[in-house]
């Protein structure tokens, strides 16, 4: 489908080009910003004076919740991914991301996820209203029966599917698709920021995915993970904050590292101590996976654990101090040019320092007992997330705008924008730090506590701050209409993206970018790496698959026939996708040379599968952890053999172990060109997998009859959710296997060319490994 005109609707729906998708992300995230910003204004109006009746309590709760969730997950992360999509391949000299269709699917899943969550406003009881943390047991059907919460859960699941695909995609792209000479250390700061971001996402999202999965099951099937006191609030907070703390770095890193590139360009010197900055960021990332307990100081957890978390939290402020210090040292003695991007960059650094300092106060258990749940906390995280991250991303958009649009914007208006933005910002958020005793998330407040002035100021500030955004959009619009042509490198930047045209051609570079030993970048005219071998790719399946997922969830929650339509669309799309695969339409050969350390020997699809499996390991770890948690918390638990038949479990274990053997034998056969062995091995694997699922169906039916129903208690909840998730993985494996078998029977695999068989095996054996643990945990212990 190479002939779609560049400016048609079909282009935007079917595109797989990273720059198009970057623009889609940008427009979508700004749309969500406006929507969530409008909700925030409603909230601020309600809080202007004591005892206001502008919003009802319920409307307030919906507004504040949707505001938080959308700002974090549908604005701040996606806008970073807009830039990442557009800029990262350019910065590493790649033609596109490693898996363009998956990239398109990431975008559509994100959009449909946002839409399904937003539908909640139109259902009885309204949208999700639990606060963005969706704490248990308020999130259960018992206390919040409205479908709005289930819809939000579905939206989150789609979002997490999107995140998983894009993390794998960016990891593989950055590791495998750098141009010759571009070592990891030579990568520009922004690409580093995205690398760290997606790495954290890969490990931090799965626990949250597990929690939402469990919640969805509780709400739709009636399991009791979060209703039972042995699971409940504490289980949810663990999983949520294991995700939630790294999430703040996930939101911060793209911004913080984009700042790095802006600083380099506008001070005309390299980042001071770049290696140390990167090392500090890596240390901060690792630490961020270990400090989630500081959000749980007041939950009554183990005091020793609290102390450890305090120390670790205070430690984590060191790497961030180091990074900020390096930035300041970069500024000192640099030839600073105060253009609009640089102004926003400086503003961001200043605000982030304040947010970091208030954070250190929070990490003291003693102080936190006082400030937890107050506007002080709201002030703290808005300084980091809005002051630090959002301001830096505005800087980044101004910085790369000429590259993306090919046009300059008005500096004068840019400075006006900055002034209004900062004034509004400070009037909005500074007063919150004085409201150290005003509880957050309450829809109104009484007079006479001395809260009046600061609330009034915050509301006034909110409107000034809000006003700065239309100015921003106007500047961009005017630039598009009548801006000066930007040329390749309007700012005098030092990284690869500034060597190509603005906006870049579909294939990014005419010629071949290279980086030589001294770090000098240039474009050679020799198309050595098959430079012109790019052609436009369009595929309808990313959008139809995402739409199908949307319909299936919608149907399951609101109106079942819709789910049937979704299922049909899914089947049709998967068949279409398989046909594209059989025709090898998207087979983009890897360039023969390139910087690929530390995965020089690992082919890109294989690396993608491995990365995916890492996140899967954490997902199942979280499910198993939840099971262990509730089990240790429970006074009684069925003994082995009491509910579940050990024989049954053992039979299924032997079946699955054997299916791994047949899968690996199929691979051994094709390696020597033995087609019969290949087909026999694959078929045997398929039949064994099917047998596993059938046996399971019989088992579930039987124990259901005996009263071990979804809602019968925690043992049932843990069993059905964990082994159900595993069964779904087996089923998904069978779908892929069916495709592989079809291809094998067409002679599609040869002695030289059989990587798909191998990579499928990686997944299949992983699923086997999971069962190796589930079997003893649920049947034998």
């Amino acid at each position, binding site marked *: 489908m190479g002939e779609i005109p560049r400016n048609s609707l079909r282009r935007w729906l079917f595109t797989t080009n990273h720059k198009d998708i970057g623009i889609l992300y940008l427009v979508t995230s700004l749309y969500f910003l406006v929507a969530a910003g409008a909700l925030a204004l409603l909230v601020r109006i309600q809080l202007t004076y004591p005892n206001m009746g502008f919003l009802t309590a319920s409307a307030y709760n919906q507004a504040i919740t949707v505001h938080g969730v959308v700002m974090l997950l549908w604005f701040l992360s996606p806008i970073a991914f807009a830039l990442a999509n557009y800029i990262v391949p350019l910065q590493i000299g790649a033609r596109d991301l490693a898996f363009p269709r998956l990239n398109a699917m990431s975008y559509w899943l994100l959009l449909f996820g946002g839409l399904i969550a937003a539908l909640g406003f139109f259902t009885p009881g309204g949208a999700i209203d639990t606060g963005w943390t969706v704490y248990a047991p308020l999130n259960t059907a018992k206390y919040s029966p409205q479908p709005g919460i289930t819809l939000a859960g579905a939206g989150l699941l789609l979002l997490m599917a999107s995140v998983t695909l894009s993390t794998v995609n960016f990891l593989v792209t950055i590791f495998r698709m750098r141009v010759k000479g571009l070592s990891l250390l030579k990568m520009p700061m922004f690409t580093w920021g995205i690398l760290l971001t997606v790495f954290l996402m890969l490990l931090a999202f799965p626990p949250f995915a597990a929690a939402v999965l469990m919640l969805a099951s509780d709400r739709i099937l009636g399991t009791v993970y979060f209703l039972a006191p042995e699971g409940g609030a504490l289980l949810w907070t*663990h999983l949520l904050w294991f995700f939630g703390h790294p999430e703040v770095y996930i939101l911060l890193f793209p911004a913080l590292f984009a700042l790095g590139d802006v600083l380099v360009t506008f001070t005309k010197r390299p980042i001071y101590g770049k290696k140390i900055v990167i090392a500090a960021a890596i240390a901060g990332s690792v630490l961020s996976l270990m400090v989630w307990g500081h959000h749980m100081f007041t939950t009554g957890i183990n005091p020793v654990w609290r102390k450890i978390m305090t120390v670790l939290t205070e430690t984590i402020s060191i790497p961030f101090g180091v990074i900020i210090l390096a930035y300041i040292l970069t500024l000192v003695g640099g030839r600073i040019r105060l253009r609009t991007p640089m102004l926003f960059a400086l503003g961001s650094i200043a605000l982030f320092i304040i947010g970091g300092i208030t954070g250190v106060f929070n990490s003291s258990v003693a102080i936190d007992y006082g400030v937890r749940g107050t506007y002080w906390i709201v002030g703290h995280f808005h300084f980091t997330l809005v002051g630090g991250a959002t301001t830096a991303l505005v800087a980044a958009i101004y910085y790369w705008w000429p590259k993306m649009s090919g046009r300059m914007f008005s500096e004068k208006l840019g400075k006006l924008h900055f002034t209004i933005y900062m004034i509004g910002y400070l009037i909005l958020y500074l007063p919150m730090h004085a409201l150290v005793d005003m509880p957050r998330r309450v829809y109104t407040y009484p007079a006479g506590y001395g809260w009046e002035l600061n609330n009034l100021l915050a509301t006034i500030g909110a409107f000034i701050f809000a006003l700065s955004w239309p100015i921003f959009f106007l500047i961009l619009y005017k630039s598009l209409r009548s801006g000066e042509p930007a040329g390749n490198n309007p700012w005098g930047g030092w990284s690869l993206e500034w060597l190509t045209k603005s906006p870049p051609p579909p294939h990014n570079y005419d010629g071949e970018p290279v980086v030589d030993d001294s770090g000098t970048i240039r474009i050679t005219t020799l198309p050595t790496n098959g430079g012109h071998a790019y052609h436009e790719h369009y595929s309808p399946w990313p959008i139809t698959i995402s739409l199908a997922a949307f319909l299936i969830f919608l149907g399951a929650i609101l109106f079942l026939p819709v789910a049937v339509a979704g299922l049909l669309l899914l089947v049709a799309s998967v068949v279409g996708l398989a046909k594209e695969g059989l025709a090898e339409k998207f087979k983009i050969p890897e360039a023969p040379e390139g910087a690929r350390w530390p995965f020089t020997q690992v082919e890109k699809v294989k690396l993608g599968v491995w990365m995916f499996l890492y996140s899967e390991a954490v997902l199942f770890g979280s499910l198993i952890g939840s099971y262990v948690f509730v089990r240790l918390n429970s006074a009684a638990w069925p003994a082995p053999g009491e509910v579940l038949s050990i024989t049954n479990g053992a039979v299924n274990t032997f079946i699955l172990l054997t299916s791994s053997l047949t899968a690996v034998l199929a691979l051994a056969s094709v390696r020597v060109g033995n087609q019969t062995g290949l087909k026999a091995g694959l078929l045997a694997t398929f039949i064994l997998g099917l047998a596993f699922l059938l046996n399971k169906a019989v088992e579930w039916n039987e124990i259901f009859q005996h009263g071990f129903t979804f809602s019968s208690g925690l043992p049932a909840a843990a069993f059905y959710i964990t082994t159900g998730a595993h069964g779904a993985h087996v089923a998904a494996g069978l779908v892929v296997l069916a495709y592989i078998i079809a291809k094998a029977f067409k002679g599609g695999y040869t002695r030289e060319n059989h990587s798909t068989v191998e990579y499928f095996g990686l997944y299949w054996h*992983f699923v086997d490994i999971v069962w190796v643990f589930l079997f*003893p945990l649920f049947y034998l212990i």
Partner: protein
Amino acid sequence: MGLPLPAVLPDLEEAVDVRVLVYVAVWVALVVFTVIELMLVGMPMTPITIALGILGLASLKALLIALFYQHLIGEAAWVKIFYAFALLTAVGLVVGMITGI
């Protein structure tokens, strides 16, 4: 180039035979460990000992599958390091949850 094909084939086949043998041997080990797990159930030992024994065997099985079926044994070092890091993350979460009680 121009070499008669059979000159290459035999030792390829041989290499494969060894591989197949390893695969089958691993499968036998997996089955045997599973049988031992089953035998441990109901042994006259404390439930904790039994649980640890069984989970130890399960870990061993998982390791065998990873090393020989996923071919981790010959995989690039960083694939293993990342795998280990992901597992460590999961274990850290579980341990944190349990000890936080």
